[in-house]
């Protein structure tokens, strides 16, 4: 069994999944890629949208989530913060 993911890691996984799909992703794909339950994913997506790290887009193809500039900045900062928090055992 894998190690329990911290909140910071889950946010990174969600944003990375969107970025790696070219910047936008369908909710079903995100659910699969983020490895979360449906309810958890909804909670995280809602929080990330509140914090403007991702946005929701609706077109003919259906609903999609897109990563914002703030979300891309998070991915740049993530490695630094992760190294820092790991050093103190968070």
């Amino acid at each position, binding site marked *: 069994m894998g190690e329990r993911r911290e*909140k*910071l890691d889950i946010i990174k996984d969600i944003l990375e999944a969107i970025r790696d799909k070219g910047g936008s992703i369908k909710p079903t794909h995100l659910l699969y890629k983020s490895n979360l339950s449906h309810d958890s994913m909804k909670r995280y997506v809602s929080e990330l949208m509140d914090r403007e790290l991702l946005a929701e887009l609706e077109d003919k193809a259906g609903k999609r989530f897109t990563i914002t500039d703030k979300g891309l900045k998070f991915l740049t900062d993530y490695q630094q913060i992760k*190294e*820092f928090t*790991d*050093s*103190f*055992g*968070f």
Partner: protein
Amino acid sequence: MTLLLNGPQWFQGIDAIFGFVYVLVALLIAALSNKAYKISGEKKYYYFSLAFFLMGLAFALYSFVNWSLLTHISPLLSGVLTTFDFAFVIYILLIFLAYTLLIIITFKIEESKVGLLIFTLMLLLTIFSYQYYLKFHIILFILLFLLAHQFYTNYTEKKNTNSLLVFISFYLLTCAEIFYVSMVHVNQLLYVVAVILQLLGFLTLFYMLLRVNYGREKRKA
């Protein structure tokens, strides 16, 4: 005996300069932890940041008071500082608050009342008692020993250089407290050893911060 102007006379003032190094390191850690709070939204990073901010504030006060006593910048200020130990009391308050927060976060204590109890007991044991200089450093030794042990456990799990540096820095800070205590009954020169160990501890933390900020790019290249 107060916390201010300790150690041999030739060394007085030098420790105040070192104090500014501690302020810089503590505030850098506070800033980085605040950044972690902003991007993750997790409260523990906020409290960790607050702990190091309070520590920075305490060291700034310590250095400023020592410096103003040495330079006699204001006779009124020097008079107040030497009559009452209020600067020392504020320093103790800030340091204990900072370390209580660190203990709560590092040991993942979820009950806030436990934190309040630790803080109150530490204050009662020091400020309202005889020989508070000694008691202050003995309590700090215990707190730092617990933190160093926890950071050692973290190092054995993570096995990376940064966690080793954090453990080494807290180990040095713990050792410094032994010399601060011994200085009272053995020799004033031990105060110099204590201050140098404390400086080394903070410089080790500073090196860890440099690795986190700049080492990543180098390792990638």
